[in-house]
Structures are given as C-alpha cells and as structure tokens.
C-alpha cells in the first residue's frame, strides 16, 4: 500500500471505532458521566468538607484529577477490549485481516479509537467537575501529554486482553480484578505520604500511581513522585505493550489459524 492508502485505511479504522462508541453512547459515554457526578457529590460535597485539606488543597480539588484519570483509563481500555474482542467474536475482524492493511496500522487504528473515547470521556468528566470545583491547570503540556500517553498505554493493554479473550467474561476480568484495584490504590483519594512506610513502598510499585500523580502535577502542581520518572515509565510501558501487541497480531492463533 502507498502512504496515502495506508493513511486512508488508518482514518477508516478510527472513524469506524468512533462511530461504534457513539452509536452505543448509553453504554460508553453516559456511565462515566454518572459515576463521576456521584463521586463528586459524595466525596466532594458531602464527605469532602469533613476530610479537610489534602496536600494543601480542598479534598475535592485533590481528588478531581485522579477521578478524571480513572475515567480515561477505564474507557480507553474498555473501548479497545470490547471493540476488538467483538470484532473477533463476530468475525468482522476478518474484513481487516483479508485487506492489505499492515498490522501496525490495524493496531494504531484501534489504539487511536481507544484514545478517542478515553479523551472524549475525559473531556466530559472534566466539564462536569467544573460544576463542583475549579480547575486551573498549572502545566498544560504535562497535563495533556500525560493524559494522552496514559490513554495510549491502556488502549494497548485492552488490545492485548482482547486478543487473548475467549469469552465476554474474559474481557471484564482484568478491568475488575487488576485495573480498578490498582487505580483505587494509585492515590486517587489520598496522598501516599499518608501511608505507613511499608505501604508507601508497595504503592510505589503501582504504575498507575505515577500516571495519576503526573496528571495531578499537571493540574495542581503537586505530586508524590518525580514527574520525569512517570514519563519514563509510561514510555517504557507503551513500547513494551506495543511490541507485544504486534507480536500477537502476527502470531496469534486466535486471529489466523
């Protein structure tokens, strides 16, 4: 395929991905909006004032960045895992596999679909959070790049999950048993400084902690960890997951027998 043809194929995949999550918006866009509103009402308005300031900010200001990241992470992951698994299950992935589209275009197309939903939901929840708190972004470049890279990372992870999945149950195991716990323990609701020494150490092994803190640094200007480290780690994860996804696309028996 020529460069132009690859570009057309790439855009075609993204358009189809976006159309898919827009078509089923009550399952894709609405739930995160409702969830985030509940979080803000409960932790921000009802309980927040009793907790008092955290890292020098109102509790609601402190949790808002983490909650936005939570939405971005789960939606990026969720989009790719369900779309690609659905395509595999319904066999429409064959439309792509029989076409001349190179594997890396297939992968980046699906990943950008996940990013589109992750960031789309990110924007929605950010707008909603403005009803409850003010957000003046301290470092716009850090904020945008962290959220974008995190979205790419979890889209790739969702892709890998989808390649391995053999049933619809398999696409909810990782989100429920790995992603959600790691995110909740990743310092959305608290600063890890508050944890006793051992648990602070354990928390530092959680990659999501770095992303949430880097994002919080972008918005509030405070972080429990070094932001440079966060970028390095996100970058390494992306490279590793990308390479593994490509390997799977070429070799997976689930796609080509």
């Amino acid at each position, binding site marked *: *395929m*020529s460069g*132009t*043809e*690859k570009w*057309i*194929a790439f*855009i*075609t*995949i993204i*358009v*189809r991905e976006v*159309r*898919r999550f827009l*078509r089923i918006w009550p399952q894709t866009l609405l739930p995160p909006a409702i969830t985030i509103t509940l979080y803000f009402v409960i932790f921000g308005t009802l309980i927040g004032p009793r907790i008092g300031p955290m890292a020098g900010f109102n509790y609601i200001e402190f949790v808002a960045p983490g909650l936005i990241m939570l939405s971005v992470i789960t939606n990026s992951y969720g989009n790719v895992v369900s779309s690609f698994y*659905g*395509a595999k299950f*319904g*066999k*429409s992935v*064959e*439309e*792509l*596999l*029989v*076409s*001349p*589209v*190179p594997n890396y275009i297939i992968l980046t197309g699906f990943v950008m679909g996940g990013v589109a939903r992750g960031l789309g939901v990110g924007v929605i929840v950010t707008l909603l959070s403005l009803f409850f708190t003010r957000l003046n972004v301290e470092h716009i470049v850090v904020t945008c790049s962290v959220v974008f890279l995190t979205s790419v990372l979890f889209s790739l992870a969702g892709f890998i999950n989808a390649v391995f999945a053999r049933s619809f149950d398999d696409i909810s195991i990782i989100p429920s048993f790995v992603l959600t716990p790691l995110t909740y323990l990743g310092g959305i609701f608290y600063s890890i400084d508050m944890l006793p020494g051992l648990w602070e150490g354990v928390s530092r092994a959680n990659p999501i902690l770095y992303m949430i803190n880097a994002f919080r640094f972008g918005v509030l200007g405070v972080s429990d960890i070094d932001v440079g480290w966060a970028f390095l780690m996100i970058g390494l994860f992306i490279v590793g997951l990308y390479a593994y996804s490509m390997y799977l696309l070429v070799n997976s*028996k689930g796609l*080509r*027998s």
Partner: protein
Amino acid sequence: MTESALTIRNLRKAYDNGFEALKGIDLDVEQGDFFALLGPNGAGKSTTIGILCSLVRKTGGQVKIFGLDIDSRFSEAKKYIGIVPQEFNFNQFEKIYDILVTQAGYFGIPRRLAEQRAEKYLRLLDLWDKRSTQAMMLSGGMKRRLLIARSLVHEPRLLILDEPTAGVDIELRRSMWHFLREINRQGTTIILTTHYLEEAESLCRNVAIIDRGRIVQNTSIKSLLKTLNREVFIFDTRDAIETLPDLGGLPGHLLDEHSFEVEIQKSDSLNGVFDRLSRQGVEIVSMRNKANRLEELFVSLVRANSDEPAAEENEEVA
C-alpha cells in the same frame, strides 16, 4: 502467455491439533476462468480459500496470485482478491452502506470513490433500498448478497466465493448465478467452492475435485461430465474365454479367463451388448458395476445435497 490468476503448488495445511486438512494440492486457474472447487463437506475447500486470503496460515507449499508469491508479496496480492466467505462475517450492528464504505477504506480507496462504489454495488445486488439498515435486520438472502457486494468494492481481478449458494433458495441462487456470469464475462476471474455438481456444471468452465485434502481430478467441466456419464461393467462368463468378445466397438478389455470389462455410456442400452454376446455364444453369469473413486465421491455428493433443505436461510424479512 499471460500469467495465471492463481498457481498453487504442493500446498499443505496441518492445523494445530495435528489434523492435516490439505495434503499437498496443486491448482492452476487461468485469468478469466470460471473455476469450481468441488468437494464434499470437510474436503478442505474453506481451508484452501482461507490460505488465499491470509486467514489460515499454510504449513507448506507455494501460492502465487497473479504471479505474486504470498510469502513475500501478500499485501500487494490481497488487492487483487475479493473474498466471499462461507459464513457471515460483517459487523451485525453496522449499516450496510457503512460496511461497504469501510471495506473500501481498508483497501485505501478515497472516501468519495468508496461511496460511489458502495452505491454501485448495493444497487447491482439489489440492496440499495436497504442501505441504512443494520446488517442484522437483513434476511439470509440479503446477507449473502451483502457479502458479494462487499467483496467487489475494491474491484478485484479474482473473486473467490466459498459456497455462496449454500442454503439459498432456488430463485436467489439463479439470480446470483446470473450475476456471477455477468461479472465473469466482464473479465473477473472467479473461483467458487461448492458441493453442488449442478452449480459447477451450470457456471464453470474448469473444475478441480477435492476430497480429504487431495485433488482427485482437475479438468474441464465438459470432460468431467463425459467421465461421469461413462459406466464400467465387469462381466463374468460361464466358460473360459481366451480373447475379448466382439463388443461392437465399445471400449473394454479382458481381466482374466472368466471376466472382462466394458465401458458404456449411461444413456446407451445394455441389450445390444447382451444380444451381441449371445450371438457369439458367450454366456454371462453375473455382472457388476465397477465402482471408481470419482463415482463414489459423486454419489456421496449427491446424497449430501439431497439431505440438505433447499432453503434453510429463506427470506424472513420482506
């Protein structure tokens, strides 16, 4: 000489469970041909097609599509192929117009042209009225036609259909045949797999017969039909004979001193043979049909066809 549309040499496929679905097949399909790959269920037809469109990885042999070896130039070769799979494999939730435009996009066709092609082929296959319908709302026959429309949006030089008319009612089958003949007349090479002899007979010029992973016959439809219309009988005589009796020009030969075989057109009467033998004083005590592999295969094909309901996926939605 122009290169073949498809050249297959010693193609093998062993699935992961160790099952050998293809045991080294050779095939040549010339450009412009209308070619049937005929065989009973489980013969290896879909496996062969799967390899041609990259959904199945071959475990041995060589495949060239318009001279392009799929080991090194599959991406280029794929542009030349349109594929109509045996099972529906579109996204059931998408509108059929979008399915076609998207498929064209995967082949790198610019949006505007993709839309023109989608309209052209939806109209040709009588689906234009349904363009905004979700695929799952279509009847079985319409879904089949959608597969065909989708396979044509990038205007392939080689169209491959895997049992396109299985479970399709007679009327739709006829109109699909008509459509395929027309596409072929305009220059598209067509390969179709089928287990209906009638379909191969009515549409195709050349045929390969595949059974249990091997090609058992590869010839023109005409000579295949000629072969099938011949029957070989073995006659056992009461008395020993030294030479083949006069059979009035029918082909035959001596097997041993008490038997000989004769080849007879199915339409011919056996009475003439008996009369002639009686006149020569040759007494026949028994006679049997010499079963050949191809015949057996066809008996099983015919049986399989008659077991199958003619229209399992009849129109459900008007």
